[in-house]
């Protein structure tokens, strides 16, 4: 039945978009590139033929419906160059489809899936066995290059009897797709060529069979408890075992090759070391034990109802790190009484809650940070060598935010025992990102790789910086790229499918999409989430290492599905009393993250209100996952990804300078000269713009014919440049290229690359003048009718001729680095530093540290402004209540630079930090205005 329907799907789409019929194939090819999994798995399983990626991640659905699936691309497995994907995309993709073309098909699949789901649960057993067989087969095909395995079909061979202990309770441990044989023994069964005899095709990691040396892949499973086994009666015989007992397996060796090593993970997706590190929770205990010597830890305590005669760990609901075997706990755990006392005592003395305590264990200072919730107390200890107490406090806030986002409240997070293993994993990831642990990993390869990829000081500093402020690095792409992103996200979020389907849809939607955001590497490209949700989602992605993963390497496929509690919905807690806030439906919220290559798309879904009732633990609906994947692919296809990566590496928006360059200019940095420079530069500034305006006006009509092939600048959707387009940059550009040559060129037609550059030039100039919202909307509607390849081409053209934008005034660039910090929106705009030498990094680290100090001073002002009454009560130092700017000058090894922070109070507190060369004419005011406006 499904076969026929599947066939009809492409047909249908062809009919509807007949003009695009050619593109379906291209699309499939493209799918192939991305997912590379349509091959080899086209038998049996009911939807693997159309969309096998779904099958892959479906095997990872946990018992509570959550999914965390990562598949790395082959290259990153062997650490080859990361440029492959970019190259692939660079090559022209002549036939690009709108993603609509696949939509209709999706809908059918949705309906079909609704039927098949019921069917599948009924016939789960059969279905599962076939599905797993598929994976085996497929893996065999894929892995053929590495080691040839032949399963020789001899009847004769050594017969062994193996006793295994099985426990039917663990039936569902591996998820619902696992067969009985997999669940009980950890053996993946497969039929021999005669379709009767059962072969050991692979092992489930940590299964019973794997621990037993006598079972080999390729063995013929003859008898279980002296019942003869065929592939047909296997499940039936196993299902008869209902009590935990020893089972005798009789195996006969048929294959001569021992292939235990390579194929042991046979049914797992290919994952790079980093990805495995994120997903694997097996080594947790050993890793935790290695952390016991460090002065760090996490502990969650109940602070009431403690009796004096209680046992050792009374009131401790969770502790990390710990060792189950040796019964050793962190020093924090044994000394916890002191912190409980302080937490009780200090409010009674000075009416303030303690924030952090500094202690010294041995020679090392550490910081204990408090978060109390009613009668319970969370303590996190971090050593001073990795962060200061202020950083520790802020990082704690970020962690608590993530935990509450994931588990609703700290109580619900730490109290249930079943959460503990995932919490262990969470904190191990966190600690490893923060501290350079030089301890024995189990396999040294993994360790080396980790060290290399993520443990450079700069990275740690960056992680700390981002965590401490709970902000996402945002890059501001050209406006038409942003429009494209917004359009794609909106289209997905709207879920308006009427246009794509002629038949009436009678099924109620399962989820409402609250918002979504998209990342390239670790940079946020666009967000449709409310600010608080944005901060939540970002913290979640950062702490679970997903941003680091996509930043370091490409993923072939990444799917994450998790129930979460967004703060915009009051963490899912419904209090009937408050009527002033808008109604929050009594529903559930889910986070869906999909990723390809270096890109991530996070979608926040709501179940409740107008959606169909959500029934527990079925995992994500394939339709929504595919929808998100389609959206992400669409955004990649129109070239946004390439644009973003070029944007990041281009160092043009705004342009910063490396620290080496100006040992020369340093000599002239005396103050008086600066003052002169100020006057001079402001003089010279006034004149050039006028000339320029004239130039452009003269030039425009002549340019037009030369670029008729494409579009006239007025019509072009790429009007933007960037929101922060500046006069100065264009001035300098025209100065740089030389006014004379431009003049002489004017007479003749401008062709080729030059033409494109000129066009962009004039386009961005145009945008400076009038760029009203109406214009944008006009352009927007224009965009929709455009061909996708055109969009792509335009976007990419733009990046080819990026005009470096200067923020400082004058004819030279003096800017090292800047950061625009908006903690309310959770957004960080910054230049991407040129990381060439260690000195740069040190200056960057220095900058980050300065920002912390300045931020604390500026924050006093914010706090004071927030206090409406109680001004008398607060203990804020009166001299610091109205600080709005703070700057420091550093002089290092021939480089003199300022770090300056400024606070803007309206509309909401924002901070701007710049790091610029001292010899710059003192025009920070200008910088600030330009960025702020």
């Amino acid at each position: 039945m499904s076969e026929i329907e599947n066939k009809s799907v492409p047909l249908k789409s062809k009919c509807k978009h007949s003009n695009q019929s050619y593109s379906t194939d291209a699309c499939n090819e493209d799918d192939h590139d991305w997912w590379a999994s349509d091959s080899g798995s086209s038998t049996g399983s009911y939807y693997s033929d159309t969309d096998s990626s779904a099958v892959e991640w479906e095997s990872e659905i946990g018992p509570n419906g959550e999914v965390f699936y990562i598949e790395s691309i082959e290259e990153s497995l062997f650490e080859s160059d990361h440029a492959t994907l970019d190259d692939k995309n660079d090559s022209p993709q002549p036939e690009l489809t709108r993603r609509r073309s696949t939509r209709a098909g999706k809908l059918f699949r949705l309906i079909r899936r609704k039927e098949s789901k019921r069917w599948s649960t009924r016939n789960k057993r059969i279905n599962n066995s076939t599905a797993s067989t598929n994976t085996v087969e497929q893996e065999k095909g894929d892995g053929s290059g590495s080691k040839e395995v032949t399963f020789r079909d001899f009847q004769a061979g050594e017969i062994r009897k193996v006793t295994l202990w099985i426990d039917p309770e663990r039936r569902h441990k591996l998820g619902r797709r696992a067969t009985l044989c997999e669940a009980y023994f950890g053996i993946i069964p497969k039929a021999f060529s005669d379709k009767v005899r059962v072969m050991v095709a692979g092992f489930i990691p940590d299964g019973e069979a794997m621990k037993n040396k006598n079972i080999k892949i390729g063995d013929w499973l003859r008898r279980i408890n002296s019942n003869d086994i065929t592939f047909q009666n296997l499940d039936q015989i196993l299902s008869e075992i209902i009590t935990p007992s020893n089972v005798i397996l009789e195996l006969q060796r048929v294959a001569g090759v021992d292939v235990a090593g390579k194929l042991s993970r046979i049914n797992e997706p290919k994952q790079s070391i980093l990805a495995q590190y994120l997903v694997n929770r097996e080594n947790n205990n050993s890793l935790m034990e290695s952390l016991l010597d460090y002065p760090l830890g996490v502990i969650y305590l109940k602070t009431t109802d403690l009796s004096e005669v209680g046992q050792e760990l009374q009131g401790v609901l969770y502790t990390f790190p710990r060792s189950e075997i040796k019964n050793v706990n962190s020093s924090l755990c044994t000394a916890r009484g002191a912190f409980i006392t302080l937490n009780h005592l200090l409010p009674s003395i000075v009416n303030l809650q303690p924030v952090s305590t500094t202690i010294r264990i041995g020679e090392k200072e550490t910081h204990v940070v408090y978060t109390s919730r009613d009668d319970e107390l969370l303590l996190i200890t971090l050593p001073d060598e990795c962060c200061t107490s202020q950083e520790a406090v802020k990082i704690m806030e970020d962690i608590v935010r993530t935990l509450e986002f994931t588990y609703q409240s700290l109580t619900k997070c730490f109290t249930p025992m079943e959460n503990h293993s995932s919490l262990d994993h969470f904190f191990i990831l966190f600690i490893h990102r923060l501290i350079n642990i030089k301890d024995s990993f189990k396999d040294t390869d993994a360790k080396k790789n980790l060290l290399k990829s993520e443990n450079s000081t700069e990275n740690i500093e960056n992680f700390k910086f981002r965590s401490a402020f709970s902000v996402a690095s945002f890059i501001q792409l050209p406006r038409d790229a942003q429009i494209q992103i917004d359009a794609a996200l909106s289209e997905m979020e709207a879920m308006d499918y009427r246009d794509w389907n002629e038949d009436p849809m009678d099924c109620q939607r399962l989820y409402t999409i609250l918002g979504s955001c998209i990342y390239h590497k670790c940079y946020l490209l666009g967000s449709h989430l409310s600010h608080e949700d944005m901060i939540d989602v970002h913290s979640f992605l950062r702490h679970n290492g997903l941003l680091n993963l996509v930043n370091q390497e490409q993923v072939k496929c990444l799917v994450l599905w998790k129930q979460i509690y967004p703060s915009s919905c009051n963490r899912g807690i419904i209090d009937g009393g408050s009527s002033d806030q808008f109604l929050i439906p009594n529903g559930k919220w889910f986070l869906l993250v999909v990723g390809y290559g270096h890109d991530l798309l996070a979608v926040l879904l709501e179940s409740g209100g107008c959606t169909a009732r959500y029934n527990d633990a079925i995992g994500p609906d394939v339709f929504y996952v595919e929808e998100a994947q389609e959206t992400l692919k669409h955004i990649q296809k129109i070239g946004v990804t390439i644009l973003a990566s070029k944007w990041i590496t281009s160092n043009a928006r705004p342009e910063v300078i490396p620290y080496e360059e100006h040992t020369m200019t340093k000599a002239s940095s005396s103050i008086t000269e600066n003052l002169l420079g100020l006057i001079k530069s402001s003089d010279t500034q006034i004149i050039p713009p006028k000339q320029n305006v004239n130039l452009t006006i003269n030039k425009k009509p002549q340019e037009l014919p030369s670029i008729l092939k494409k579009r006239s600048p007025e019509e072009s959707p790429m009007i933007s440049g960037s929101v922060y387009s500046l006069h100065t940059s264009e001035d300098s550009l025209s100065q740089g290229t030389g006014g004379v040559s431009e003049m002489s060129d004017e007479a003749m037609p401008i062709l080729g690359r030059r033409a494109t550059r000129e066009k962009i030039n004039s386009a961005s100039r145009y945008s400076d003048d009038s760029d009203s919202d109406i214009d944008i909307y006009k352009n927007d509607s224009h965009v929709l009718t455009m061909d996708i390849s055109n969009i792509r081409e335009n976007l990419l053209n733009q990046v080819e001729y990026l005009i470096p934008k200067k923020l400082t005034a004058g004819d030279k660039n003096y800017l090292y680095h800047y950061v625009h910090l908006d903690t309310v929106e959770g957004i960080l705009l910054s230049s991407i530093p040129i990381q060439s030498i260690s000195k740069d990094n040190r200056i960057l680290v220095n900058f980050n540290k300065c920002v912390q100090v300045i931020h604390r001073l500026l924050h006093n002002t914010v706090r004071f402004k927030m206090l409406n009454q109680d001004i008398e009560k607060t203990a804020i130092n009166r001299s610091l209540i109205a600080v709005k700017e703070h700057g420091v000058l550093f002089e290092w090894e021939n480089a003199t630079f300022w770090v300056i922070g400024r606070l803007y109070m309206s509309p909401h507190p924002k901070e701007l930090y710049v790091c610029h060369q001292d010899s710059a004419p003192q025009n920070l005011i200008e910088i600030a205005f330009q960025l702020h406006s």
Partner: protein
Amino acid sequence: MSVYVMCLTSSGGIPLFSRQKGDNDTMTFSKIASLNGVHMFLKSQDISLLSTDLSDMTVIWKEFEQCIILIAIASGVTKYILDKFLDATFGAMVLFTGIDEIKNSKNIERLKKDMRLCSSIIDSLMDCLDIGDKISTKTNIVNMTECIISSENILLQTCLEGFMEYLDSIYGCVLVHGCVAAATEGWWSLDSVERKLLTIAITSESICTTYDIPVFLPCKSPNVAFRLVAITLINHVQILALCGPNPELTEIERFAVQCWKSNMDVLCTVEQCYPRNLPASVSLDNETLGFLLVNYKVEKFVLGRNLQCEKNRVIGSHRLDILRTFYHQAVEMFGLSVEHKENSDEKVITNAWKFTGAKETYLCSEYHKCHAVKHNDYILCVLYTSVVPTHTMRLISQKILKMIFSDKQIYW
């Protein structure tokens, strides 16, 4: 807005004294005992409790000589300064009692009585803290010696040296309004805590004109007492000296009069310098409200206000508080006051981060602006009105620095 300091014996947890300042509730014994108990418990776990941060306050514990625990709670003060404050408090305890007595005291009641002697000094030390209130009349810094610069400093210096020769001592200084106008080299070799304590000991009680008290020097000689002699020459001008048992006080007095008689007018002009604390040859611009010049190596400072401004505007004394706050929060924070060592560069990244190479810093608030610039061992902080453009501050500060250090008459 408040500060507490508590002292207990670390073996028995018996409270020796407790002082407080500001608008706050009195500290009860049970609270003191609990604070101490936490420290004791952690000590039994081989963990030393250092400090706890609250949103605007800091609690700090410190154990001295394995026998005394000092606990301080203060608002608005950096940890660095609070730590210095505890050092000074312990120094004050040693000053009159001697370390032996504190360490080996059999009779706790007597020790408590001894501690009462130093309570006025501890109160003065608490006044030095920048707790963010505007009450204190004089702005002082807990870890540095306050000085006054006048054009007659060289003359005073010669005179003082002659006087000290007679006393056969190397430790002596001239105080004008509690600020050091001239001092012997030996005086500067004393620890900054000792200098501070000796000055406070003399100035905290202003009724007497002549002092002769035995003092222990907390760092230099905690076991053997010196004689601290102070003689008032004219109103607000005193001469301080540490000396041995001879000569008699009356003899010293007589010689002092003899020695300084010829320089009475000099003393008067120096006295007139206060509270500007700068010689008239250095003129301050109208936009500058006050300045703070610090020598961080010797740990001394001059804090002065621009009297010209004061005539035009109504300015409270807290204006100079701003400079002190600025110094603690911005200058010390960025390590302007720390020597930059080239060879320790490697360690910078691995160990806790320290700022190196900071040269200047400024801060703009809605009501005023501050600018600090480093010059060799000196740091000049200037308080400006808010109308001064930010880049002009640099020029004016440099100008003041130049004036102070190019003037040969100014000896500091």
